[in-house]
């Protein structure tokens, strides 16, 4: 009697669940019925549009216009709205859908995009952008200075805007005329351009935003001016981007871009499965390959792997707040001295990445290849430094995010290296959510192991992590000299002055009074089927798929 009852209960549970949730609302992932394709626009006159460097194509394979490229992404895109986006992964879709005011070329130089040129006032507090003409959003509305003002005001004034902090130095935007917008700044702010490359400078259609309301961030259909149009987004399954035939961009030879007809983005969290999809031909593009798989993909003749130095870094984050072990800065320095960075890269990262000592990466203008403060591990010097503190052996809790065996292996190697200097790092694994909470509240006992994806301007890798009281300063670090230098580099308009200030600051927060122990710079990867042509990795790790084509 009991088992029959359980049997029927199980069967009916499944059915009843369907009935209950059916009352909660219907699925709707298609574009609104009213949205139509924008009318065809004449291509931008030759010479007006900045041409885009397309890497040399593989010998023997002719590129063809058209085709569908499947891009496997490590996670699903969460927010299509650049204003709300908080996840790195979102930017992989944003760069295809939206144009921003400026962009970077593969060398990291800021180049014109929706803004054809810009002028900065002598006091550095006004930046005037001259906008590209004859550009329309995918929904047919016009892109102009009014649109720029509306977008920037939306980003900097909406309560829940994730761009609010980035655009805090912007006091307002004036519409000079239809194709000229003037940014008024509170103070001179050099990193502004690098921020306008990314989400803070991406232009979305006001009409699309207002029509979709709260759903815009998931259903941003026909909302950008970019090379591809978002036409479908099925959560946790796939995203469809279709060619924008009216896009203004062209390649070096003057051919209109984009070349592909369609891009399907599939979120696959498991790196092994992502790789299998490429090897079976079910996908043609990926940009996040686990270090353990790099040797395999390099030897696979059906795949093409490229990597360049990236902007991301790995570091050990100590809690330097008063009352915690690492309030003593010499302990942080001792850890930096004891680390064998090359061994970490060779053994724990399978040779992927480069040794790093600070925040300023190879691709940054302020990078100094001669800055190698802890080039050789020196456990004896580390021991002496710990001993000089006079509080006995150093022992601390080392928080490592759970769920990823690779992270644990890396942490264990660090633990073993520190043991040579008689430093006892006691590994404790916690969910990432819990570590983040402890970091944010500055209550973690010792050190955490959390990385940073990197930004194209060194300020984005440095300021918020080392400046007193800034939101990402998880180590509660405070050094007035560092604060002063970081403010100086923000106010300076020329790279040489900025570089000098940044280099001085890095010497302090890495060596003299360390805020963290940095050990590695990441790489920007690109893995494609050999059929994919025209693409090269960018240091920011985000693909520019308007350049891609598929071999016949």
């Amino acid at each position: 009697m009991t088992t029959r009852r359980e049997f029927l209960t199980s069967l009916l549970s499944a059915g009843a669940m369907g009935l209950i949730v059916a009352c909660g609302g219907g699925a709707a992932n298609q574009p609104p019925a009213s949205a139509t394709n924008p009318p065809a626009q004449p291509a931008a006159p030759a010479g007006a549009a900045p041409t885009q460097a397309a890497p040399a194509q593989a010998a023997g394979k002719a590129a063809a216009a058209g085709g569908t490229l499947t891009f496997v992404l490590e996670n699903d895109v969460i927010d299509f709205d650049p204003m709300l986006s908080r996840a790195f992964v979102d930017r992989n879709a944003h760069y295809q859908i939206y144009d921003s005011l400026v962009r970077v070329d593969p060398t990291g130089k800021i180049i014109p995009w929706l803004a054809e040129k810009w002028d900065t006032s002598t006091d550095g507090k006004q930046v005037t952008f001259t906008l590209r003409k004859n550009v329309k959003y995918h929904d047919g509305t016009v892109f102009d200075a009014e649109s720029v003002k509306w977008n920037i005001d939306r980003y900097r004034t909406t309560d829940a805007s994730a761009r609010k902090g980035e655009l805090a130095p912007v006091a307002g935007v004036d519409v000079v005329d239809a194709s000229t917008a003037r940014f008024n700044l509170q103070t001179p702010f050099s990193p502004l351009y690098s921020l306008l490359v990314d989400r803070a400078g991406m232009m979305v259609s006001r009409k699309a935003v207002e029509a979709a309301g709260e759903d815009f961030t998931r259903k941003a259909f026909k909302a950008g001016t970019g090379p591809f149009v978002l036409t479908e987004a099925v959560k946790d399954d796939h995203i469809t981007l279709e060619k924008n035939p009216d896009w203004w961009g062209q390649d070096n030879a003057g051919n209109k871009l984009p070349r592909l007809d369609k891009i399907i983005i599939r979120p696959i969290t498991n790196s092994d499965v992502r790789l299998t999809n490429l090897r079976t031909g079910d996908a043609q593009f990926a940009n996040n390959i686990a270090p353990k798989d790099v040797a395999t993909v390099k030897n696979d003749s059906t795949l093409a792997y490229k990597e360049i130095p990236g902007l991301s870094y790995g570091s050990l984050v100590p809690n330097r707040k008063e009352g915690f072990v690492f309030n003593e800065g010499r302990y942080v320095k001792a850890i930096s001295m004891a680390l064998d960075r090359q061994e970490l890269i060779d053994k724990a990262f399978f040779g992927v990445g480069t040794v790093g000592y600070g925040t300023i990466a190879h691709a940054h203008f302020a990078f100094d290849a001669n800055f190698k403060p802890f080039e050789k591990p020196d456990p004896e010097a580390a021991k002496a430094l710990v001993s000089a503190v006079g509080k006995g052996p150093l022992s601390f809790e080392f928080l490592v995010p759970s769920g990823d065996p690779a992270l644990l292996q890396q942490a264990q190697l660090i633990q073993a290296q520190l043991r040579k200097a008689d430093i006892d790092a006691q590994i404790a694994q916690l969910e990432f959510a819990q570590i983040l909470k402890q970091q944010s509240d500055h209550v973690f006992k010792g050190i955490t192991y959390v990385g940073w994806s990197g930004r194209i301007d060194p300020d984005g890798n440095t300021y918020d992590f080392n400046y007193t009281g800034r939101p990402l300063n998880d180590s509660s670090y405070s050094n007035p000299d560092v604060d002063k230098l970081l403010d100086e580099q923000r106010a300076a308009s020329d790279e040489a002055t900025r570089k000098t200030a940044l280099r001085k600051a890095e010497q302090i927060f890495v060596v003299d009074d360390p805020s963290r122990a940095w050990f590695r710079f990441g790489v920007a990867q690109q893995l494609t089927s050999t059929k994919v042509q025209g693409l090269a990795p960018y240091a920011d790790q985000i693909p520019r798929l308007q350049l891609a084509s598929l071999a016949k």
Partner: protein
Amino acid sequence: MTRYIIRRVVLMVPVAFLVTVIAFGLLRLAPGDPVLTFSGDVRDPEILNAMRHSLGLDQPLPVQYVAWLGRTVQGDFGRSIRTHQRVGEAIVERLPATLELTGAALLFSVTVGLIVGTLSALNRNSALDLLATSLTIAGVSIPNFFLGVMLILIFSLLLRVFPPGGYAPLIDDPLENLRRIVLPALTLSAATLAVNMRQVRSSLLDVFSQDYIRTARAKGLGENAVIVKHALKNGLIPVVTIVGLQVGALIEGAIITEQIFFWPGVGKLVVDSLLGRDYPVVQATVLISALSYMLSTLLVDIVYGWLDPRISYSKAR
């Protein structure tokens, strides 16, 4: 009967209330901050506080609970903190994929289990029986996260027969749907298939030794008729019971299988939401599961009365 149903429905109210308290409270006890988790690279306290305010997370817990309960009884489960999608919509979108996967796995494990189990019983200790027994042990022993990866390796990477994952809606492309469901359904059904094969085999062996089978054979009935009409009919009763119980296990197993094959079902939604403390989604899925169970229990009792007239609810105390 009507009075019985009314009484049961009334009794469900306090239980449902208790479920809402547990669904709401349990997750809040777990450490972690959903806003912080989903804030990614944005950590400006002003922005985070604005997000907490817009989600009502800055209110005292009892206020949050009452507000959530108020919306829930009106059928509004709120929006996901992670994706901003309406929770009801998120579940409705994913339910067909999960039901399809569990349905396919159940169908596979029952039909194959029945055929191979019967053949195994008929050819006891033969090579086929030994093979089936070995597969049974393997099916129960191999965890589905391992089996799934092995199947991908063999059938996707080496043989290139099936895609390594992904979902194609049945309505849009039935053939592609079939191609994509084979590996996840096989993975999910492995353990239940093994149990079903074993159960069919032992039930039939037990039935074969019964007097009425000997009688059927003695009166000259053909072997096929003996198996189908007499042995299987009686031998399947315990199998049916076990299969019924497997539905719940399959839905549980789908959580892992959906992760391996990036199958966009409810299981994947729950895991992603749990890891990130996406309160509205977890609360809604827990609540819906509990309510579904309560409703189906009531329906089972009603069906019992209808199936077996000896059960009289009017006399129930």
